[in-house]
């Protein structure tokens, strides 16, 4: 098999797509979280500031979803088709929420009527919440595995997706994003809204830690295959410990009012949780919970070596560019939000 720097091509793409999804979780995570918190801000002024804190960057953040999905399509087409068609209705709902979220941000400022603002505020908050929950629900089911027979055909029912574990993961993702969003907004706001957000950050972080503990317990008990790798490689357990320490560090940063540090910690938490998931998964991409032969491994799903190699070159050129734009964009809009004529 073709390798680059000693790593085979499908593994490279497993890592790259993992990095893209982590990037998406970290970047869109905070603006989805900010959206989910939106209705907690009561004053028109506060809502405008919160909206403009993500205004110039959310579109760029969503690019990571587009690139991540495109890369999954290109590198592992079998998995792309399987996951998207199996979760047909959840993904359709996800798309609708994506549309509503985008247009809510865009349309809100276009009219002066109070009911108009109220309408798009609710739409923005609900769609952000729904996106976070659906991402969690799909993730929760992928962690447990889905019923695929030996031919990788789906033999389950839609309602099976709404099981307690998946719902727990959905709520956990929402709580993580809300905390992450609160910390981002704290870096961008001042005065009254800042004071309000300190309370929100405090509460959402407590809520997240509760969810985190429940999720860890539930995973250890009900999803043993996710932790099997620790038995094989006990030294990897360090990553689990690191996750716990980082999560505790979020609390510590919030108590010390070091929100930038807290934001970095919640970013790392997002990435670490996805890394733990990826480790439990590898070398599979989709687990079957009824027949091990139904699981889809990266080798089975991978595109041809030639295609993977070409795209790896594209990624090597393109990803530094994307990272540069992202940094340039955040740097341009650094500092606290000031409302001006071009603001939403």
């Amino acid at each position, binding site marked *: 098999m073709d390798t680059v720097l000693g790593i085979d091509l499908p593994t490279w793409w497993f890592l790259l797509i993992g990095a893209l999804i982590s990037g998406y979780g970290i970047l869109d995570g905070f603006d989805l979280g900010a959206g989910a918190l939106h209705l907690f801000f009561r004053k028109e002024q506060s809502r405008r500031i919160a909206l403009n804190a993500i205004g*110039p960057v959310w*579109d*760029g953040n*969503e*690019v990571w*979803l*587009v*690139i991540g*999905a*495109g*890369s999954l*399509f*290109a*590198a592992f*087409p*079998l998995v*792309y*088709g*399987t996951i*998207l*068609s*199996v979760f*047909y*209705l959840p*993904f*359709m709902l*996800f*798309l*609708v929420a*994506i*549309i*509503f979220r*985008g*247009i809510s941000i*865009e*349309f809100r400022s276009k*009219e002066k009527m109070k009911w108009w603002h109220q309408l798009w505020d609710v739409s923005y908050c609900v769609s952000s919440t729904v996106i976070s929950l659906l991402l969690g629900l799909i993730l929760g089911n992928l962690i447990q595995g889905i019923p695929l027979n030996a031919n990788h*055909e*789906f033999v389950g029912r*839609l309602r099976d997706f709404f099981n307690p574990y998946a719902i727990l993961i959905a709520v956990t993702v929402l709580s993580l994003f809300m905390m992450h969003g609160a910390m981002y907004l704290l870096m961008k706001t001042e005065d009254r809204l800042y004071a309000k957000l300190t309370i929100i950050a405090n509460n959402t972080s407590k809520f997240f830690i509760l969810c985190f503990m429940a999720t860890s317990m539930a995973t250890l008990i009900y999803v043993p295959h996710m932790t099997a790798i620790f038995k094989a490689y006990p030294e990897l357990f360090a990553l689990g410990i690191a996750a716990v320490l980082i999560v505790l560090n979020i609390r510590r940063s919030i108590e010390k009012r070091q929100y930038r540090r807290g934001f970095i910690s919640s970013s790392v938490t997002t990435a670490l949780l996805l890394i733990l998931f990826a480790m439990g998964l590898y070398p599979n991409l989709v687990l079957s919970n009824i027949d091990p032969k139904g699981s889809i491994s990266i080798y089975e799903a991978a*595109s041809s070596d*030639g*295609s993977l190699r*070409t*795209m790896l070159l*594209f*990624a090597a050129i*393109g*990803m530094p*560019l*994307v990272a540069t*734009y*992202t940094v*340039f*964009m955040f740097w*341009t*809009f650094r500092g606290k939000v000031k409302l*001006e004529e*071009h*603001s939403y």
Partner: protein
Amino acid sequence: MDNVELLSRIQFAFTIAFHYIYPPLSIGLGVCLVVMEGLYLKTKDKIYEELTRFWVRIFALIFGIGVATGIVMEFEFGTNWAAYSRYVGDIFGSALAAEGIFAFALESAFLGILLFGWNRVSPRVHFMATVLVALGSIFSALWIVVANSWQQTPSGYRIEGKGMQARAIVTDFWAMVFNPSSIERYSHVLIGALLAGSFLVLSVSAWYILKKKYIVHAEAAFRIALWVAAISSLAQLFTGSKSAEVVTKYQPAKLAAMEGHFEKSAPGDMYLMGWVNAKEQKTTGLKIPGGLSFLVHHDVNAPIPGLNSIKPENRPTAINFVFQTYHLMITIGMTLIALTLFALFMLYRGKLFQTRWLMGVFVFSVLLPQVGNQVGWYTAEVGRQPWVVYGLLRTSDALSQAVKAEHVLASLIMFTFIYVMLFGLFLYLLNKKIQHGPDVASDDETSSRMNPSMLPILNE
């Protein structure tokens, strides 16, 4: 055709037709923005700055809806066409991923600066952001059209596996990218986009001129857009005929459907308008005998293979539909050429902006490139049937196995409802922005702050 296939096809056609309103507008408008802001940097004339700011606001509205509806398309390949995704992932997926990395990231990142960066970056950096957003949208179209063109004229691949396990593998990446129809189809689509964007500017400016509002701004914008539109509509004649040559060579069934040509082998006629009766295999209408043969082979007697030379199961079914959309596209193209050339002539005579009926025509002209782009797309896509990848994969074999008809129906109803609402809101807000007009710094709008003759490149 079973229900899942029918519903998935309707859903895909509907969502792409709706999406395809916006990207062409933002591509064309992006180019007009580059010209406007470039002129501002060059001349330092406030008018151009105010124009740029005004059109950026409209650009943002269009871009936002374009992105939201574009994400839907990307996911639909997997949700509704899982077998297709598996079959072409190696190829189509690479092009789509390249679009994300090389184009979409560029547009989206610099869009933030274009919209919100006025007071944060220097005018030069802002102009650079405008250029990059425009370039991003142009590259974006490139990769998407390349991916689509590969479906029309596959090359640079081999087929691996048999039956349901078969899939296309890239053997030569650049042969895949520059497949036989990529360049012709891309230039045709890109110029269609320039027409869509420039005619929006023409329409809004003409309306201001008729209403005697923002006259100086409107005339400046009209000049810019008229040049873009005139050059584009002439160029479209060329790219269109090139595209037809490619279709002749690689997709004979589509060509035969486009002209309603049934005989196995006979000289092909070119219809100006007409009607196809597919059952009786008869096409009636106003035609140039041997015109198609002449266009393709430069000989009125050269035989063209008709639909009857193709196995029945490999023929497109909606022949009259393809015929009508194709001819409507050509009619619109010719109208645009006549309209823009006449307007340039009137500009040269110095009478353009005083000719009220012509301004009235331009107000409504915005619909023409939009309809042209839509029917052009239908011709290309419906004419390709029953193949989703020409000659390789049938549309009926491309479906997701896991999806139930009632789920597709539910999502189709949902999309119909949302898109109708979205379109209504779009028109409402677009109208509102147009009514509001550009923010003019001082009230000497009608005085000649700008002397049009100072602008050599825009003046005749």
